[in-house]
Each structure stands twice: as C-alpha cells, then as structure tokens.
C-alpha cells in the first residue's frame, strides 16, 4: 500500500527554538520513540509536520481522546457484502508501510489503550493483531512520536510509568519573545510591532498560570489574535476575543487580565 498521500509536500513554517531539529534527526537514525512535551499551542504538532517533511516520510496523526479504544489504533473487522473483512487502523498502517505515527495528546486516551504501543517502543518493534492472529513487523521507516502536556491534566490522567520510560523526550516551551513575535508576524501578516505587543500581552496571561489560569495564552492564540488584527479588528477587541474570553470564565481573572492587557496598550 502506498502512503504517498500522507507525505507532506510543502514545507511547513517552523522556526526552531533550540536544537530540537538536530535532536530529532539523531533520534530518527535509530527510530527512537520520541515524546514531545510542552504546553498547548507551543508548536509541537507543527514541529512533527516539519520533521516529517524534512525527512520526507509520511506522517500519520492520531488525535487521542477519552473514548478511543485499542481497536481504533490497531484496526478491526468490518462487514462488507460477503462477510467480515479486516481493516488496518492508523497505527497498523504506519507500522506496516513505514510512516511516522504521531499520537497527539496521548494522555487523553485511556491507559489500557496506550499499552498497545509497548511492543512497538522497545527493541521488538512489532505489533501483534490478536484478533487477526497476525504479528506485524515494523517497517524500517516506522517511528512513533507522542505529544504529552504535563501541565493541565489532573493526577488522574498521567502516562503509566512503563509507557513513559519507553521514550526520549524533547521539551518545548513558548519561543523567546523576539522569535515568538517573528512567528506571529509570519503566520498572520501583521507587522513586527504589533506582534511584539502581542507577545508582551501574552506574558501577562502566562504570569497568571497557576493563579486562576491553567495555561497562559499560547503562541497559537497569539496568532489568532494577530489574524483578527490583520483583518482590521482593533487590538483591544482582538485580544478580548482571542486571548481573554476563550481561556477563562472566572470573572475576577477575566477582569484582571483585561486590565493588564489594557495597561500594555
């Protein structure tokens, strides 16, 4: 089977914040399972896309969710006109034909689900399909990447220790102010000055992390605000729409944040 439609053809915009590109390339050589840690909206997914493009490998992304079962990853029997027929799940596809398999927000999946990747993430590199009585040996190009946001989920949602220890990890954070401004300007088309102001505003919201906010404004949110501004929306309104209202319903936090943003204008 051909995974060509999973290939990323155009270069995704990605601006490295440290040496993560080199680290990932080094890990790729031994197909080491990688874990990307960091707050939401700081560019983890974009980074994987960029690396897949750079390495010219297909990328299969799976967004994990609470109701996801092992069959959703591995595959299941379905019915067709003549009876049952096996359909590979996205993970099996990547294993069989060689792709980077990216499990986004893996903690969202139930713990028993994430266990199916264990045999793929040690030196065996196999996936057993019990229902089908088949053991799939991983293609040489198969690599597994997961993203993991340790911040916001409760104690109830954490990776099993046995899962955690199968990965190398790269820590992501919001880029440095100048770089972040550059990214915002590039993604939204606003000028550098506005972008820099937005970065200053984001600092106000990131200060509140742990004091009423679970997470400060992400780079992604700043880009949204900038996109609104580039459409002629005023800065105050854009910040309200993109940076304040989405992240909190707490009246006091909202008030404090809006006032702090006003102080930046």
């Amino acid at each position, binding site marked *: 089977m051909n995974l060509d439609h999973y290939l990323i053809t155009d270069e995704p915009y990605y601006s490295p914040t440290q040496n993560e590109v080199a680290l990932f390339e080094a890990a790729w050589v031994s197909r080491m399972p990688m874990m990307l840690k960091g707050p939401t909206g700081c560019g983890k997914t974009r980074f994987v896309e960029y690396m897949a493009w750079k390495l010219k490998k297909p990328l299969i992304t799976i967004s994990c969710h609470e109701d996801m*079962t092992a069959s959703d990853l591995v595959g299941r029997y379905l019915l067709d006109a003549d009876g049952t027929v096996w359909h590979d799940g996205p993970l099996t596809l990547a294993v069989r034909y060689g792709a980077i398999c990216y499990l986004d927000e893996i903690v969202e999946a139930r713990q028993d689900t994430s266990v199916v990747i264990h045999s793929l993430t040690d030196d065996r590199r196999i996936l057993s399909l019990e229902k089908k009585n088949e053991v799939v040996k991983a293609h040489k190009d198969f690599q597994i990447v997961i993203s993991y946001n340790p911040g916001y989920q409760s104690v109830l949602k954490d990776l099993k220790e046995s899962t955690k220890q199968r990965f190398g990890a790269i820590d992501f954070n919001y880029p440095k102010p100048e770089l972040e401004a550059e990214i915002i300007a590039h993604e939204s088309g606003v000028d550098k000055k506005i972008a820099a102001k937005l970065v200053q505003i984001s600092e106000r919201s990131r*200060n509140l992390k742990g004091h009423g906010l679970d997470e400060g404004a992400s780079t992604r949110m700043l880009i949204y605000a900038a996109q609104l501004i580039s459409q002629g929306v005023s800065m105050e309104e854009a910040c309200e729409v993109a940076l304040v209202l989405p992240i909190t319903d707490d009246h006091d936090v909202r008030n404090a944040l809006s006032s702090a943003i006003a102080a930046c*204008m």
Partner: protein
Amino acid sequence: MTASTTRGKYNVSPQSKEPGDPDEGFLFLIDQGKVHFPAQYVALWERVCNKLESAGYGSLIPLSYVRHSPKLTKYISPEAAINLAACVSLAAIKVNRAAAELLPKASVIVAHELRSTAAFNSWMETIEELVQAAPESVLPVLERTQKIISTLTPEQFKSWVLAGLRSTGDDTLRQIQYFSFADPESEKWFRHEAGDVVFTDLDRRLKLYLISLWNLRPPMRDLPASTSPLSLRRISITNGVVRVPEVFPGFHGQQAENIFRAGLAHVGAHLVYSTKKFPLGELKPIQMALVSLLEDARVEYLAMQAFPGLRDLWLPFHVAKASGPKLVPHLLARLARSLIDENFRDRDGWVQKGKDMFFDSANDITDPAMCRRIGVLLGNDLGQLRAQFNAKTYVVEPPYRDDNMGLWDFGDQQGEEEDENGIFIEAMRMDQQEEQDESSQDQDKQEEDENSEQQYHARESTDNEERESEVAVRYPEYDYLTGSERPNWTCVIEYFADYGDPYKIDRILETHSELVNQITNLIQTAKVSLPERLHRQSVGESLDIDACINAVISRRMGQTPDPRIYSTTERKHRDLSVLVLLDVSNSTNDIVPHANASVLELEIQATSLLAYAMSELNDPFGIAAFCSDGKEDVHYYRIKNFGEPYDSSARAYLAGLQGKLSTRMGTAMRHAISELAAQHTHRRLLLVITDGEPSDVDVEDRKYLVEDARKVVRSASRLGIDTFCVGLEAGGENYLNGIFGKKNVAMIDKLNRLPERLPMLYLRLTA
C-alpha cells in the same frame, strides 16, 4: 474601645434647644402647630398631644413632639405626624426620655430628606424594630440621623441595622459601639450598604492584576476605615506588606475600582523599580515629601515605558490646576501632575524648574539617586520662598499614591524591620521629625490619632493571641430577611486538631470485625470494575455475532439490516471524591442511651468504619470537623486531606476530636465546598454528619442559620457538588430536611446503630 466618634456638623444632639425655647409653652405651640394641619386632623392631633402630655413622660417629650410633628404634614402627611406620637410613646417607654425627645426632630430630618410616605414609613419601621431589639442603641442612631439618611436609603438603613444586630448578638455594649460607629465593622457595613466599593470586594481581582502585570505577589492587608490614623488613608508599603485602605471615600462604582487598581499598579511600580531605600540623613520633611514625589514620578515613568496603558489609569486622578494659591500641598500636586501629564502647562517657576530637572537628559532615570538630588534642591527653593509645609496634615496627592513610608530607611529602626507594625514607628518618627520643625500642634487631632493607633494595636495583638492556626478565610453569609449575602461576614479559622490515640481507631475496627468483614465483601463487588459487554452497538471493537447473523438474515430477506452489529466492553469506573464533615459541637457530648457512649464517640466510630471503606475503595476522600464560637471564629479541623494517605496521623486526629461550642453549619460547609470544588472527579459529595439544627452563640434568630445552610446547599448543587446529611437526632423539629432536601437526609434515630449504618449508607449512596 472608646473611640473617636466623629460628629458631623449636622448631627443632632438631644441637648440642643432652639432659641426662645423656655418661653414657649405647650399650649402656645399647639396653637402654632394647628395651622399646619388640615381641618379634619386638627382635633385628632390635639388629642394625641394631650395624651403625650398627660402620659407622665415629663415636659420635654410632649414639647418636642408638638414643636416638630406639624412639619411632617408638609413633607409627608398629617397621618404621619399623628402616627409619630405612638412611636415617641414607645421610645419613651422602651428606651429613655432622651431618645423619645429626639425622635420627633430626627423624623423631621428624615422626612425632609425623603419626602415619600413609603420611604418614611420604612424608616420608622426600622426604628421601631431597633427600639424592640436593641433599645440602648436607639439614641446613638437618632443622633446620627443626618449622616445616615443622607447616605443610605431606608432599605439600606434597615439592612445596616440588621447587620449590626446580627453581628453583635445580644451583647448590649457591642451594639452601642456598632450603632455609634465606634466599632470598625459598623463603618465598613455602612460603606457596604451605601454601595461604596470596599477593598475586600476587589481583593482577588486586584491581586491577580499585579500577578499578571509583574508577577508580584506581595502580602496585602486591608486597613479598617475608621481605625486608620490620618497618615494611613493612603496605601502603605512596609517591609513588603501592602496595606490598603478599606475604602477610598468619595469614589464609587467603577471609579472606586479604578483607584484601587491605580493604587496597586503604583505599588507594583515601586516594588519593581524602587530597589533601594533612601537614607533619611538630615532631610527636612518637605525634602522627604519631594524626594518621595519624584520617586513616585520616576517609577511611574519607568512602568509606563513598559506598559503605556497605565497612563490612562493614573492620569484621571491628577486633577491639580495650574492656578490658585501657591500653598505647598497644592504646588506638590501640580508638580506631580506636570511630571506625568505632558499636556499640562504650568507657568509657575518652581513647578517648571522641577519638571525641567526631572526630564533633564543627563539623568539616569533608572537610578533613584536622581530623585534625592533634585528633591533636596527643590526643597531648598521652597524654603527660600518661605512657603509653609505642615508635615502633620500633608497627605500624598493624588490619592492612589502610597504614603511612601516604605521608601525610607530610618536608620536606627533597623532592628524593628520585622515588626509588622513598623509603620507606626515610622509614622511616629516622622511626627517627631516634624515637631522639631513645626511648633504648632493640633492637640485634639493628636489625641485622636493616638487613640486610634492604640485601637489598632489592640486589634492586632488580640488577633495574634487567638489565631494560633494558619489559615483564616472569610465567607459570606446569607440573610433571608434581606434576601442577600453579606460578603466576608464570617471567618473560618483552621485550627490544628488535637492528637488522640491512633490505636483507638484500630480498636474500633477490631470490635466491629464482623461489620468490617461485611464491608470488605461489599467493597469487593463495588470496587472491581468488571468490564461490561455492550451488545448491538453502532461502533465497537468487535463484531456482535448475533447481531451480524440477524443483519445478514435481514439482508437476504430484502429488508434493511440493523447497522448496530458491534459489541464493545466498557469498564465502569468509580470516579468520586468525598468530604466528610463532622459536627463536633458541644451537643455531641450528650450520652446516647443504650449505647453508653456520647454522640461524638459514635460519630468517631462510624467515621472510622467509613474511612476504612473509603480507603479500601480508593475513593479520594477528606475528613474535617467543625464547631463555632460566633461568626468570627468558626473552627475547622482537618482530619485528613485529599491526596494524603489515611495513615496513623489522620487516625490520631480523628481519635482526638472533642465536642465543644456551637454549630454554624453553613459557614463550615462553605469552607468544605471550596475544598471539594478543587477535586477533579466526576462526582463530588459532601457528607455532613450532624446532631441537630445550626445554631451559634451570636445568633438569636433560629431561622437565620437554617436559611443560610439551605442557601449553601443550593449553591453547592450549582457547582455540581452533591450534599448529603446524616442526621443524628430523634424527634424534634426536623430542620435538616429543610436544609438538604428530604431525599438527601438520612435520619438515624437509633444512634447506637450509626457505626454500621454509615458505611452501608455510603456504599448505597455511591453505588
């Protein structure tokens, strides 16, 4: 407390007599008054007057009534004038002659202000209520009629009176203090009712504001309005503690919020940019004031470079005009404005010079030293102008700026740096300083200052003695009479629980070993979350063969097959956290017949079995106990916190519980709920175990605390928190149904069976 009660110029005092008073006879006054009444009321009024005259209240009361009541006909109605007599009579009987004599005059003031029958009647009703509930307090209230009625509406007045009665219980002395504004609480609630924004209303959002801007988290205290000496009407920073006045008088609504915000932004600027303290050296008070002013301008300048929007926050408070007499305070305010407002033109040579020196490009704006240098020079200039500066009466302008005491290093006070009350030392130090310069003294004022200073110290020290524990949190309380919550009304203090014998709990489990076995068996079935197979699903992990066969049959028969041909397995998770709140009030010391143990003892037994069940089930749970000693001291004991293991120390705390004091249930529940709300489970349950109705020493009205608790339960359910109550009471009026709702109360009448009933109840409740 014998505090200064500020008597406004409009205050009425019973001694005041109108000119010509002695000459006016009763009959003469009646003749004069008659003309104000419509014909049909004249006879009635005369009869009422004569009745008062002959009632034996002395001559002054009827005279006062006859003199003042005719005025009510104009402002309100002849009926009101006549009805007043009954109230005067009531006051004369229940209170004293002075109050009864003052009442007609006070009514006229109120009538003049209100001019509405409904509002006037409402005011009278409240006075009558006060006469019944707290007769000793009537006179102080009547004496302050002008102040009260010019600020509060009759409804607000009623609410303020209620707050007073609620907060003072039936302690007459405290009532008098409250109603004569000698109690700081009084002023606070007065401001609250008047709609003034008090700091505690905005506390949280302003703290968040500072965190957001500079990631600053300075400890903040509010300064009660009426205890503050003059110098403390401004925000003050001492040793990192920010003291904020409870209210900025004269600022309302959004404006009040803005001035608090402006003030804290200014404090933030100081904390970030005022890195070094100025040594006091040989500076004169005027120089100190100037250096402080320049430093204010400097830190604001730096802050506005980072956050240009702060200008819009600060500027509206700079209202100095570039004209008027050249008094020092005025000149300082003009200088302050010219340093922040570039559009402000001031032709005064001294102000201009200050501005030029401040913005001289040779200055290093990041270095506070420039302020000292310029301040000294400008101070000398003022000295040469022979301008008078009175440090005692000087208050920093504009009002959002702090008193700048924190900027100065007073040298020899080093050792007292840690003292929280260092501010007073510093303030006194400043007083001493200026005494050398200034000979004029305002005797009264000083006395007043000292008075309130002592009060303030007294407050602090009692606070320290009582509050041995770490946490004190304030909660609102709901008053069904006003239909609203009074913010920050009660105070929960977390005390350390006494350590008991942890083996006592183990022994309880041993004695109830049969019950423990039973619980263990029940738990096995409750805990093991067996996967449940769900058939005929439209999505699933595997095919449901039966469904598939049916589907194929349907197809062969030419029918539309049922697409739900999958099966899936689902595990049922227990996802629940529980907080058990035990009532340990004095009544739990009662011995239960047939059980040979106190109610508390049975509570402990039951709770230890319950805790065993919960820990076996791995349900996250907490245990706390409460009792209360008035609204300011609701005791809260943490036995076991969420996230902590149920270990021997938790068991020791449980074993060490003692029954004492009263049952302010609503407040304790608020505290428990705030803790439970932080739990991230699907279900959250507050399990209250109590032996009776809510009550407290300072509450007379039995319905009040019941209604408050009911309100708490309702707001908990809005937060998605379930409340359930186990009532340990046989007979009597059942308040608990009213509070928790019938379905959420289990009454246990045979108390000796509580230990076995409670865990079973829990299992059933959470199944």
